[in-house]
Every structure is written in C-alpha cells, then in structure tokens.
C-alpha cells in the first residue's frame, strides 16, 4: 500500500478484482469496504503527525506531496539586468541609501528629494542670476524647463529599451505590456514610412509590365534592373511517353474521351440535377394553374373548407 500524506492519497496496487465482475451492489460494497480500510490506514498515518491545538481543532503540518503534479504555468523567469545595472556591475558601483528628505538651500527648508514640492523645484526659483556666458535672448526659465523635459524623455527611452530586453526573454512584469502604437488615423501626425529599396524595385518592376508591350520597349531609367520574372509560368505535360508524366497526360485525355464515348452515357447525365429541374418545372406549372383557379373562385370556398375540417374534428 502506498500512502501520500501531502495529497491525502492512499493507493492499493495489490488488490485484484475478479475478471468476472460480481453484481453491482456486491461490487460497490467491496469498493466501499476497501476504501474504508485505506482511509483508516491514511488516518492512522495522519493522526501520528505532531499536532498543535487550536480552538477549531488539532492542526497538523502536512509533508510535501510525494506524488508530483504538473504546474499550470511556467516558472517565473528572472528579470535580465538593466543597462545601468550592467554598467554598475562592470564598474563596481554599489547602491547607497539616500534619505528621502534633503535640505533645500533656496527655501532653507527640508524637502523631498524627488517628486512634488521637491528640492530645487522650478516654482521655488524666482530669480536666476545672469552669467557672463549667457546668450542674449534666451529665456533661462524656458531653458530649464526644456532641459528637464529632455532628461525625462531620455529616461523613458531607456526604460523602454530595458523593457524590450526583458520581453525578449519573456520576463516582462505581469502588469506591463508592450503594445504597438495606434495606427495612424486621419488627423494624427505619424511620420510616413520610408519605402525600402527592395520595395521600390518591386513596385517599379510591376509598373513596367503594365504597358501594352509588357515593358519591353519602355525607356529604362538609369540603374533600373530588368523584371525578375519575364515570360509565362504555364507548363505543359510532355507528349512523349516517359516514366511518370507521359502516362499522366494519356490518362487525362483518356478520361475525357471515355466520358464522352462511353456506352453508359447516361452516367454523364446528372440525374439528381435533372430530377430537380423537372420538379421545379412541374411546380411552376402547378402554381400557374393554382393562381388561375384561386382567382376564379374566391374567399367563400376557403371558408367552406375550414368549416369542413372543424366538423371533422367534432
């Protein structure tokens, strides 16, 4: 008997049922009795385990299951190091902890290092002193803003690059998806894609063959190549009897001939189709007759028939 406490499973491989199965009740009884025996054995092993008392009842720690079952999803893959992490490792740079607060000189106050109302925030700088190196006509405040924007953009680009690397090995965080940008809709600005050299060549070839001469007498542009597939693609089966193909052609023509000349020419006739055609014709004829007759008679006749049926029902 095998007992797997992790799965609470007992297995009795020795037990044999007779090849001639007894009646249903006897069989079920046998199964139940054997099952009870196994459960009892399982409970014996289970109640042996050291238990801790709890108001709800005794608790036991189950061992890990010995009968292993497959996972439902793959193991999570480790995230590849980012470009910065690689660089830091190479240079031996280690992360140091920085306090979240920093002293701001302009406001003489402790402020957050990053984020809203941070140290050296734009809104806290009312005056920027001019330097000798300043170019005239440049707004220093606008410049500050633009620089900041540039830095943020660069960081976003780097992040995307790292995410792409992670996506390659399938280690993208579960909450992040890399999606294609929306297709250009009229009104949105999307830079038109530059056609590649190969594409241009193929298009030029197609356009060349569109003239009456198939591009034979057209003026060639400097550097233009002849079309890649001149001529036709049609193939014929060989006339001469060979090993494979010749036989094929003979069979083909023979098939057609035999169909035409066969004594059982009625087999060529599609009986089903003929029958349906005949039926349709009949139907049409009958309809015409019916319309004539109904127009001749009128409503009363219908009522009469209804009455008849009602009488019958009684």
């Amino acid at each position, binding site marked *: 008997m095998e007992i797997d406490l992790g799965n609470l499973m007992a297995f*009795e491989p020795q037990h044999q049922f007779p090849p001639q199965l007894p009646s249903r009740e006897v069989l079920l009884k046998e199964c139940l009795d054997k099952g009870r025996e196994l459960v009892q054995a399982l409970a014996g092993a289970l109640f042996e385990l050291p238990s801790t008392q709890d108001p709800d*009842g005794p608790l036991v720690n189950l061992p890990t299951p010995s009968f292993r079952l497959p996972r439902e999803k793959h193991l*999570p893959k480790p995230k590849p190091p980012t470009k910065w992490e690689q660089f830091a490792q190479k240079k031996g740079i280690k992360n140091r902890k920085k306090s979240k607060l920093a002293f701001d000189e302009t406001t003489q106050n402790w402020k957050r290092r990053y984020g809203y109302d941070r140290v050296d925030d734009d809104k806290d700088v009312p005056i920027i002193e001019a330097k000798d190196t300043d170019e005239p006509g440049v707004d220093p405040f606008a410049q500050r803003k633009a620089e900041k924007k540039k830095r943020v953009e660069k960081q976003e680009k780097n992040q995307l690059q790292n995410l792409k690397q992670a996506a390659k090995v399938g280690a993208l965080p579960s909450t992040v998806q890399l999606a294609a940008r929306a297709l250009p809709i009229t009104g949105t600005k999307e830079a038109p894609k530059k056609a590649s050299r190969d594409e241009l060549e193929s298009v030029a070839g197609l356009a060349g063959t569109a003239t009456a001469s198939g591009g034979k007498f057209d003026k060639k542009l400097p550097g233009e190549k002849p079309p890649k597939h001149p001529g036709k693609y049609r193939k014929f089966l060989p006339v001469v009897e060979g090993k494979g193909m010749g036989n094929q052609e003979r069979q083909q023509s023979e098939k057609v001939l035999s169909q035409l000349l066969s004594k059982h020419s009625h087999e060529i006739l599609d009986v089903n189709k003929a029958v349906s055609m005949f039926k349709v014709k009949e139907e049409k004829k009958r309809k015409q007759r019916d319309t004539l007759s109904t127009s001749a008679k009128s409503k009363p006749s219908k009522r009469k028939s209804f009455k008849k049926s009602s009488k019958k029902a009684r």
Partner: protein
Amino acid sequence: MLKVVTPKTKRAVRALEKRAPKLVENAKKTLILQGTKTSKVLNEVLGDIYNLKKANGGAVRYTRKNENIRPFESGGETSLEFFSQKTDCSLFVFGSHSKKRPENIVMGRTYDHHIYDLVEVGVENFKPLSSFSYDKKLAPRVGSKPFFTFIGEGFETVEELKHLREFLLDLFRGEVVETLNLSGLDRVFVCSAVSPNKIVFMHCALQLKRSGTVVPRMELTEVGPSMDFVVRRHRLPNEDLKKSAMKTASKLPKKKVKNVSSDMIQGRIGKIYIPDQQVGGVPKANMKGLKRERREGKMKKDGNGVKPKKLKPNPT
C-alpha cells in the same frame, strides 16, 4: 514603435498579478463545457462536477454549445485554449455525445494555456448527487480537503488508468495546503479499477467516530455522484513539455522577518520599539469624579438619603 501599456486602476493591477506565473501557484481552476450535442446524463454529470468544484471560484461552467472544439484533433483545440486563457483555467472537462462515443467526456490539463494532456472517458451507471438520500448532517462542507483512495492493480499496470488517476487527483484535490485541520476531514473519493478499462468512481462523506485510541474510526457514507468511467482515448504530454511543467522552484524566497535577528552567542534576538514617554506635559484634569453629571448625581443622592451636615455658624 512600441508603447508601454500599464493598467489604469489598482484593481486591474491585482487582477493581472493574480494570473501571472508564480513560484507557488494558485489552486487550479476548472472549465466545464460541452460540444454541440449532449445528453441528459451528460448534463447532470457536468453539473455535478461543477457542484463539487465550484467552491472558492474553483470552476467555471459554460452552458452554451461549442461547435469547433475537438480536443484530440489538430485545429480543434484553438477555442479551448482561448477559453483557458480567458478564464484562467488550467483544467477542463468537455462533454459530448455522439453515436460513436455516447456520453463522452474529454478531460485535460493545460500548461501555459496550451493543451498538456488529454483523457477521454465514457460515463456509465451514473447516479446524480440529488438521487442520494442521507443524513444532511453528514454532508461534506463546501471546499473541504478530500481524501483519495485508489484501489486495484489497473492503476499501476494500465497506462490509461495511470493517467486517469493522476488527472482525477489533480481535478479534485483542491488547494494545496501546508497545515490541515484534522476535525475538518469530511470527504473521500473512492476510485477502483475494476477492469483494465473501467473504473468505479464514488464520492463519500466521512465520519470520525471514537475508537478508544488516538486514531478515530472512519465511517464512509456514499453521498454521490457516483459513476463508472470507461477509458477511451488518451494523449500523454510531450516529453519536453512534461519536463518543464514538472519543474519546481529550487528554493522558495524566505519571507523577511522584521526586528528579529540571530546571534551566535545569544541566539534569537528581537527588537522592540516603545514610543517615547511624554514627560513634558501635564495630564488633563478629566478624571471621572470631576464630571458635572457625576457631581450633580452625587449631590442629589446625598440630598435624598443622608442630610448634609449643617454648617456651623462662625463663632464670632
């Protein structure tokens, strides 16, 4: 160009994290569905499996007809895999009924939302849950951890039955737990391989009775459903797939315990933080005895009961 798409709400974040691959996985969910044609018996079988599994959202039941699901044929698994992805179910039970294979159930598992393995069985001698009458006190509690018993040499010698045994264990075992409450044991699945292609499946309630020893005496009462499974076709997993599906995490990351460290000499050391004692302030004078209501109440009581002493006139 690629764009980073992240969920907009915290709820969506939680939902995505729930279905991400993990070191310690969630309990497997089951998708129960049917083909274009079913029978009354099959509907009941699927319904009963759903009833057994539905605790804690463990099962999803699709009741519409599904036209192009043929798990054993190539191209017939596409919509099944899609449903598995959609509902995050990695087990499925698919019922179909035809002249060639009456009362047919295809059971299978998915790995990464692709078909992992398949077992096909026919159902015979089905007795639904509702047809059993027993003392309702015995009825197993919803979502309780079951015992499994497998009886018969067929489960070891016959490939199909071996496979079916593994599948049944996966289907009904519920959540994988570390600690178990012994008083909460109340159900058993009894599976017996009565012939090389047939097993008898029973679901019983468990009673723990006094036996005079530590180990109680177990009593089984059949509570249904019960049926016979006749094994038809089966498909084992691909070797490579099996290898990667059987991988386990070599070591689980330890949960960081705060404020506890260990020392060679002193052993386990715990840090306790106590807020600073406020010494500077004076406690407010809001003692109970000084409250107005109490004062007045006391005055009244005194007035009714014992008369206040008369003030002595000043001897001047």
